């Protein structure tokens, strides 16, 4: 029992379950799933579908955070990749052609990869602090996206493009499969290879890792590149959902939601140990919370307030000092003392 309680996934999962239970009590329809035309519908299905962009971005963010970094530019990269893809489709004579759509997606993601590589270059090679290095692109990226769309909101009609966010495969939203694919690929790459543990080593102690022969620079660089690519796909999904490239609104605040999802999932912002499963739970928690807030009839603009409350609760729960105080009160655990430095 104690082991379960102290497992890093315990609190994230409890938080998600609590939200689902509360929602179900408030509106029993929450967990009901109906079938229409062989497609599943319901609040939970919506959560699975709507969470896809955040899922992709959060997975990338998790890898970057594990290296002791942070990527503020993901929202801007989403805007750029969406703008690129939609501009290609809008300018093409055959927007419904699958080939056109694939080229558009490919180019959008490649541009995102380049932006990610740029971030990685600043952090890993030039040695700029991650917050600032990615702040540069966060500031400039949306401007670039606006320039690509010529300052307008580009809208398109393209059935294959629309399918990505709005289509269904074997009764489930296609976007959900994109999420699953991203989760599986990230988990395989990080955990089936040694990349995950090497990334953690770099995040925990960069200098020791370098001296142990870990190619820290490459790992950090790769993390930002991966974050860029994932944000690029997220941008495609986002534009596919609204079939428009809105450089200002695309991915707005998503960097913050993603950071929150990662932290909720039990990965410390100080870098090091990370869990893919935790991040997945974190993303679903946030998406469920959003759905709850919407259901409560709170204007979506006020939603940040609730997120703020959640953030504060989460960081307080993670806080050593508070834990120490609680533990002292309960006399269950020894209070933490400063590290023995002799």
């Amino acid at each position: 029992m104690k082991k379960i309680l102290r497992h890093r996934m315990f609190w994230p999962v409890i938080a998600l379950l609590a939200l689902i239970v509360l929602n179900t009590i408030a509106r029993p329809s929450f967990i009901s799933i109906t079938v229409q035309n062989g497609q599943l519908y319901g609040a939970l299905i919506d959560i699975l579908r709507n969470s896809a962009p955040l899922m992709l971005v959060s997975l990338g963010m998790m890898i970057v955070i594990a290296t002791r970094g942070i990527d503020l530019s993901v929202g801007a990269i989403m805007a750029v990749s969406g703008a690129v893809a939609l501009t290609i489709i809008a300018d093409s004579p055959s927007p419904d052609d699958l080939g056109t759509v694939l080229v558009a997606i490919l180019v959008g993601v490649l541009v995102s990869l380049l932006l990610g590589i740029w971030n990685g270059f600043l952090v890993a090679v030039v040695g700029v602090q991650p917050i600032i290095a990615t702040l540069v692109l966060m500031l400039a990226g949306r401007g670039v996206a606006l320039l690509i769309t010529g300052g307008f909101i580009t809208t398109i009609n393209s059935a294959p493009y629309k399918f990505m966010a709005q289509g269904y495969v074997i009764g489930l939203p296609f976007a959900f499969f994109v999420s699953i694919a991203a989760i599986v690929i990230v988990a395989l790459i990080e955990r089936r290879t040694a990349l995950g543990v090497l990334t953690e080593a770099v995040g925990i102690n960069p200098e020791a890792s370098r001296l142990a022969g870990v190619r820290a620079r490459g790992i950090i660089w790769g993390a930002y590149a991966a974050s860029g690519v994932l944000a690029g796909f997220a941008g495609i999904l986002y534009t596919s959902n609204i079939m428009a490239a809105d450089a200002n609104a695309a991915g707005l605040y998503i960097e913050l939601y993603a950071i929150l999802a990662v932290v909720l999932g039990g990965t410390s912002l100080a870098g090091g140990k990370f869990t893919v499963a935790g991040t997945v739970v974190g993303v679903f928690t946030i998406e469920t919370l959003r759905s709850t807030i919407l259901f409560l009839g709170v204007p979506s603009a006020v939603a940040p307030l609730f997120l703020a409350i959640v953030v504060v609760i989460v960081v307080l729960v993670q806080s050593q000092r508070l834990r120490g105080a609680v533990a002292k009160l309960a006399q269950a655990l020894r209070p933490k003392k400063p590290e023995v430095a002799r």
Partner: protein
Amino acid sequence: MTSVPVTTEKAPTGVVRRFLSRRASWVPVFAAVVLLVVIFAAAQAYFGNILTPRVISALLLDNAYLFILAVGMTFVILTGGIDLSVGAVMAFTGMFGASLMRDGMPSAAVVPIMLLLGAAFGLAIGVLVQYFDVQPFIASLAAMFAARGLAFMVSLDSIKVEDGAILWLQSTRLQAGVGSWYITPTGIIALLVVLVGALVLAFTRFGRTIYAIGGSEQSARLMGLPVVRTKLLAYVVSGVCAGLAGVVFTAYTGASYPLNGIGTELDTIAAVVIGGTLLTGGSGYVVGSMIGVFVYGTIKTVISFLGADQSWTRISIGALLLMFVVVQRVIVARSNRR
């Protein structure tokens, strides 16, 4: 053996070297000044009508709120922290103040309430950072979310302000002559905040402790300086500045809108960094931040003169930020090698 040996290290000779040995941290500020001059010179050469009293006076007027935010942000960044909440707190205090005034409360009562609200946000961030070891980034992020949500809770639409005193802050133009230099009370407030900020940092123990914490928090603690109190206070200063910016911005627009100041925290941080403050803390000046805001405002003006899309402002600021950060990085790397 009992005679005390003497170490004498002479001050370096030569004006430049002596200056560098004492005031190396001013170098980035001068870089920003040079940058500002270059932008002005280039714009003047291109347009011919940038360097007019009207345009320059408007710079101060249009960016008064940003000067105030930048001063508060400088305090926080000097301790090695960051405050992402300033734009949202500015919006919320503006909304709250506007709604109180709409309900008939006199501005003399509303303004202090707005400042106190700002202070409360700053205090909350400070407590999270100091007592619960929350990273400043996250703590101020939570405050940003909260303030933004609260701003919308006050009203989803903009609230017009009809209070005479508030509008007076903006509409009064103390003018040297027609078409000449002018300054509004909001501009005066902004300059006063800069002045007070600079004096506090240079001439009070609180100010010096901020620098000491930014240099090495552990050292500051071992030196017996009041680290906890000072850091809390730095966030409160930033919060109060955000509240005051709320007043000034409300006066500037004549109304409060819950979407005000989105992205302003990034503009503020960019201006502070361009003004030569190191994000790692311990080095920088309020005066530099003022220059940074001027650079920001000038670029914005130049881009509107060009008739170009305002997205170029953010792109230029991003590029400048990059340039300055890389230069800072090189400076730090060089001083580490020594």
